[in-house]
């Protein structure tokens, strides 16, 4: 057997430098996949020459084989791919299930030995990248891995007894909702038959086929509406108590609505530089104070601002995110027999919002009967009984909402009352990233809080949307937004999209410190940002290193924790 020859690779990354599987799928497999109902109507002529359909399938797809009881997907994990069943069968369970292995795949490359070696490694030039070698020759085709998921096994009969399940057979499709939205999986999926064979298509492939092919888009969107909507409704705490039949009825009657502009970040950055207090003016009004009540609005994706008219302006009184509802008080009043009920506040789209509008009659029928119990658990009701120090002041709320920091799940916040400016956080970040700090100790501040220019690992990471290669992605387990340096082509789409300027483009260098140049003599760029030190034993080194407890990584929407920490 000949040893595959290799070549030095000092060139820009390309779309399929790293196929999804160990190897791209062969032509026969690609042809078989394209004959499946999900793809049979996709017209290859609709695709650009540089992005052919068969190459997408070959490089962005892989085959995976599972044994009975093996968990394929786990509810709550961040999804990034769609599955098509080729052989065997699977069971979907709308609940999170404990598995024997508990499924957390070990962090790759994280060990004491590696960390110690990193500490004592000789200093490298800034943004050094080792020269890579790409195998030209093809290795023998790799058979689908026998135990690929690492998510553990469970007893199928036990699951069937204890949970509501749905069986899927070839050539059904699943996982499309998370693959399209980058959100958490809404169900657990388990293989039920021997040697269940699945075709898995990673999200960038799904996105490209959906963009180019009208038929595929219609097919996937239809699946999303048929199955995804019920799943979404089931996720809403306000509807937890409902059975499948009631959820189906709501799904059939409800409307999907979209407000705002998916491209909001560019205009937002301009507005922010001009005057943050005027950002509200560009937010699309979803419904206005005084309007008649037209259903219960459930936030499906994105953020919305609740405002009240004060003199000649609008005062933000709350902000809503996924699973929050608007209009419940008013519907309650209608059900109580009040006449002439109108909306008490306005709702505005912060950037881009998906809304599910549940008809008033269904809200009265299904939501209100369980309302009293839910209200007891409602955070906004609880908030009124919190100590004054833990209530968000108007100016702080305006600051966080106007700058859209509420998107941040792991925002870096510095307490300026405690920060001595020692820069130990920056030094620790540099230590964790081969002397390349991934943030600047600088950012917008209000009172004693500074939200630092470091990736916030957003709930809706808009930086992911335009990435041509899918190099910027979410970690399946943690949801951390990461950049795959091996597939980043340096196009800066993510850096330009980030509304917070938290992604930095850098020119990479060789071991002598000289810039690496491509065949045209141009420097080669890569996108870099905070990765929450995923490859370190400690988690975020910045928070570890702060001697004065002046730095925290925090979900900005956890206002109670934020305010108590700020003091």
């Amino acid at each position, binding site marked *: 057997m000949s040893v595959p020859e290799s070549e030095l690779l000092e060139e820009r990354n390309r779309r399929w430098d790293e196929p999804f599987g160990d190897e791209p799928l062969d032509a026969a497999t690609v042809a078989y996949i394209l004959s499946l109902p999900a793809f049979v109507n996709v017209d290859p002529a609709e695709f650009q020459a540089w992005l052919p359909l068969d190459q997408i399938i070959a490089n962005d797809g892989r085959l995976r084989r599972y044994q009975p009881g093996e968990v394929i997907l786990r509810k709550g994990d961040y999804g990034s791919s769609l599955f098509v069943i080729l052989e065997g069968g699977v069971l979907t369970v709308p609940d999170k299930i404990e598995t024997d292995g508990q499924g957390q795949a070990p962090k790759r490359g994280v060990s004491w030995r590696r*960390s110690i070696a990193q500490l004592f490694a000789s200093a490298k030039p800034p943004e050094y990248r080792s020269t890579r070698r790409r195998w030209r020759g093809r290795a023998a085709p790799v058979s689908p891995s026998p135990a690929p998921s690492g998510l553990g096994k469970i007893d199928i009969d036990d699951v069937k007894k204890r949970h509501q399940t749905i069986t899927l057979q070839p050539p059904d499709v699943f996982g499309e909702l998370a693959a399209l939205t980058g959100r958490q999986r809404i169900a657990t999926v388990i293989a039920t038959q021997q040697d269940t064979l699945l075709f898995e298509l990673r999200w960038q492939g799904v996105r490209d086929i959906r963009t180019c092919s009208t038929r595929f888009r219609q097919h996937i969107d239809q699946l999303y509406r048929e199955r995804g909507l019920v799943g979404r409704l089931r996720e809403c705490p306000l509807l937890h108590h409902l059975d499948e039949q009631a959820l189906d009825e709501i799904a059939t009657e409800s409307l999907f609505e979209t407000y705002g502009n998916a491209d909001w970040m560019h205009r937002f950055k301009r507005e922010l530089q001009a005057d943050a207090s005027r950002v509200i003016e560009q937010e699309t009004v979803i419904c206005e104070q005084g309007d008649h009540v037209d259903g219960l609005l459930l936030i499906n994706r994105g953020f919305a601002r609740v405002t009240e008219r004060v003199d000649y302006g609008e005062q933000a009184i709350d902000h809503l995110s996924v699973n929050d509802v608007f209009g419940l008080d008013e519907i309650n009043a209608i059900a109580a027999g009040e006449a002439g009920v109108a909306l008490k506040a306005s709702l505005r789209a912060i950037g881009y919002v998906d809304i599910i509008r549940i008809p008033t009659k269904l809200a009265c029928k299904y939501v209100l009967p369980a309302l009293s119990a839910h209200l007891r658990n409602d955070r906004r009701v609880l908030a009124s009984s919190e100590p004054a120090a833990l209530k968000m002041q108007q100016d702080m709320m305006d600051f966080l909402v106007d700058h859209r920091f509420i998107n941040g799940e792991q925002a870096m916040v510095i307490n*300026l009352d405690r920060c*001595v*400016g020692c820069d*130990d956080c920056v030094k620790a970040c540099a230590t*964790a990233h081969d002397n390349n700090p991934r943030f600047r100790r600088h950012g917008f501040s209000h009172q004693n809080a500074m939200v630092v220019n470091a990736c916030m690992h957003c709930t809706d990471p808009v930086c992911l949307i335009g990435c041509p290669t899918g190099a910027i992605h979410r970690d399946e387990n943690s949801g951390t937004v990461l950049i795959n340096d091996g597939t980043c082509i340096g196009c800066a789409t993510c850096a330009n999209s980030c509304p917070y300027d938290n992604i930095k483009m850098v020119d990479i260098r060789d071991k002598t410190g000289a810039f690496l140049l491509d065949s045209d003599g141009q420097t080669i760029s890569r996108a870099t940002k905070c990765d929450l030190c995923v490859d370190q034993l*400690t988690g975020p080194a910045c928070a570890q290193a*702060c001697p*004065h407890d002046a730095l925290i990584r925090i979900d900005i929407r956890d206002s109670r924790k934020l305010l108590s920490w700020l*003091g």
Partner: protein
Amino acid sequence: MARLSSMFSRGAAVNLALVSAAFALFVLENWRRDIGLHDFQFFNGWTLVTCIVVMMLLTWRKKVVILPLGRVRFWLLVHYYVGFLTVAVFIVHTKYEFPGSLLNWLLWSLFVLVSVSGLLGAAISKILPPRLEAQSERILFDRIPLFRAQLAAQAEAIARESVQDGNTRSIARLYMDTLSDFFAGPRNIVAHLAASKVPQSRLLGQLSAIERYLDDAGKDRLQKMRDLVEAKSNLDFHYTNGGLLRLWLFVHVPATYALLVAIVVHVVLAYAFAAGTIV
């Protein structure tokens, strides 16, 4: 008062109680060795060295920040509280007396320098950040010289413009006499340390005094100059207080290493001249 209460929270009280208990144990053991006719100076000397080594762990922890050995915050607290214990053990070790030899005076002085600088550092680390935050938006310390140069250039441009543009000389004269020096570098360090605004008020007063001689265009320039003076004063405040937050370490750390060297010499000499002593 609120700050005082936060500094002496329940956690701090527990930690101080633990330190007190450790010191009581130390005193008890020291006394036991004393009445047992052992040379307790070796015991309390090595206890002192151990405490100093434990305090040094903070420095080493910072260097291996990517290893999961507890947050640096924890190690700083250990540093603080073991520091209190160390001072107490040191006083016992010196037998409550001043030193009697040159080397011991050096050792004693270095220890006092390290302890006092450490205590001052801990205090200013608590006091100065809120003061900086209350003053205005935090400024990155390393960028202050750049901002200062920009302000100086703007001030000079206003002064030149006032002469070139008409008959007014007052602004240029004041600039030459006073303001050029004010913008040239950090000024009024002591006043900023005391959070005093007197020097700034004096400068603004001098600017106000020439307002009556100016036309409308001159008054506009004067207002811009006032803004620049306030901005520069603010910059000096950040430079002074931010600098102090860094400067104390330049005393504390080198003095610590000098102390370590002196300790090694002291230990060697102590053993060299301790022949026949019951250790």
